[in-house]
């Protein structure tokens, strides 16, 4: 139980052990992936053939390491680019939605609130197909009736961004709404009373208050976009994001460079998180 209650040693030890096992469970698969990034073999699986850094640095005909694998690096860039847009859109629209759902009463509000949850329960593949089919229908319609070529509605990054945005914005909405609900509205009234215009109130009081949750939602959105596969697969054009590239590589026979890039992402994100973490307590 909680630390203030005296608990038998077994219980304390038991919980500690469980939590330790929990994190082992969480990290063992990743650890294995990371270890095989250094395997001196052409495939990312056992047996262990000895240590090598080839999968990071090599640039020969036989082996292409992470640093020399232009396609891989580019796809990482594509993923980041997509994730950036999805994040911006999701947080922006999510914030609007939060205000809409928390601050306004209008007919049909409940229906909208319920509909907003829907994308969470639609399997990603279906989401991808239906958006692709719908976008194509519009694009073909525009093409046939006005001779207008709406390129962004064809398989490609804009469509990937829209598809991911479609369900990630739900999560952003939930996160930001929760924080807005806890917001003490008298702060706004106080600012208004001190002579601030409505815009100034929003800009100087409400948004700064929401900032932590918006950052949280952004991190979540970025992460979910970065790792999305199901929806993306149906919508990609020629620029493939990392997950799609990895999928096709695995289908054709993967090399440990995939492990290498996974390790790289893990380490980079861990460092980023730790940096944020260590800065925060000092700021307070």
């Amino acid at each position, binding site marked *: 139980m*909680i630390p203030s209650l005296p608990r038998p040693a077994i219980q304390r030890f038991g919980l500690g052990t469980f939590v330790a096992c929990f994190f082992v469970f969480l990290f063992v*698969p990743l650890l294995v992936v990371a270890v095989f990034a250094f395997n001196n073999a052409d495939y990312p699986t056992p047996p262990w053939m000895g240590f090598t850094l080839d999968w990071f640095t090599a640039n020969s005909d036989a082996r292409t390491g992470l640093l020399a694998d232009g396609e891989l690096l580019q796809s990482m860039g594509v993923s980041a680019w997509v994730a950036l847009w999805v994040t911006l859109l999701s947080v922006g629209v999510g914030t609007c939605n939060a205000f809409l759902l928390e601050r306004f009463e209008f007919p049909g509000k409940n229906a909208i609130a319920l509909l907003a949850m829907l994308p969470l*329960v639609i399997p990603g593949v279906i989401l991808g197909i239906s958006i692709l*089919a719908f976008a194509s229908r519009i694009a073909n319609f525009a093409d046939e009736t006005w001779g207008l070529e709406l390129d962004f509605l064809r398989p490609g990054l804009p469509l990937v961004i829209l598809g991911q945005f479609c369900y990630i914005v739900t999560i952003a909405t939930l996160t930001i709404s929760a924080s807005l609900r806890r917001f003490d509205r008298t702060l706004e009234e106080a600012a208004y009373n001190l002579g601030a215009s409505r815009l100034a109130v929003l800009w100087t009081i409400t948004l700064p208050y929401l900032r932590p949750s918006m950052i949280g939602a952004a991190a979540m959105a970025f992460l979910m976009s970065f790792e999305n596969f199901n929806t993306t697969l149906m919508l990609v054009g020629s620029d493939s994001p990392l997950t799609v590239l990895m999928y096709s590589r695995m289908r054709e026979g993967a090399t440990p460079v995939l492990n290498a890039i996974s390790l790289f992402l893990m380490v980079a994100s861990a460092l980023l998180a730790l940096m944020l*973490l260590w800065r925060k307590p000092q700021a307070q």
Partner: protein
Amino acid sequence: MSDATAYRRWMLGLLLAPALLWLVGLVILPHVELLLLLSLQARVGPGEYAASLDQYRTFVDEPLYWNTFVRTAVISVLATGLTLLLAFPAAWYIAKVARGRLKMVLLVLCLLPFWVSEMVRTLGWLILLRETGVVSSLLQALGLASQPVELLYHDATILVGLVYASLLFMVIPLVNSLESLDDSLIEAAYDLGGSTANIVRRIVIPHAAPGIAAGSIVVFMLCLGNYLTPTLLGGKNSLWFTEQIYTQFITRFNWNQGAAFGFLLLFLSSLLVWAGLKLTGQRFGAVMKT
């Protein structure tokens, strides 16, 4: 006054626009077209379709699809329960026992695995669990097994994979709802003679119920909609409903059937969630607000 009302109207319009664009343009129209219209048609000839209920009839008539759906739902429910069992103590530790920086570190640790794609995480499990894999070798080395053990391609493996992929989505809402539980409630219950088990049952679980429900819904939906984990870890007997949908859409080019399955999945899973909420006496609105 009328100024303020006009201003609110204007704001409402401004905020409603992106929401409606999103909901109508990306959620309602595409899915109405795909799930409803398509699923109510059947192919009558090359490129020709007519209204029909055949797709749904197929689902009812063919036990295979039924079985697949039931199996998917059962395993998803199991995975959800298992995830809850695993995540609860961990969330408890993070919310109530760990303090200060340790707490933040543990939370971040929970998040880290999700930076690598699901495929890579599954690859990790494949390396670990295959017949010639790490765990099998370890078991042999320890003398616990006399010959290689195949740990992959069982339903249990699917469960492990699903639970693994879902943990984060359970831990976060649980931590949130446990954190809001006042320690003094637990102390008071203890002071009144409550045992640990009783306090968990009477105080902690009722308090965390909305969080538990929220986490369970999300995890259940994620499991139900998962595609990679069951297909890669599941082996020859694995049947997964999303796989069926994928197959209908992609390899059979039978969009009508796929759409019907998609709609059924959506409908039946919503029904299950609704039933679950009813059974535990929760309300969807309250749950989504945690």
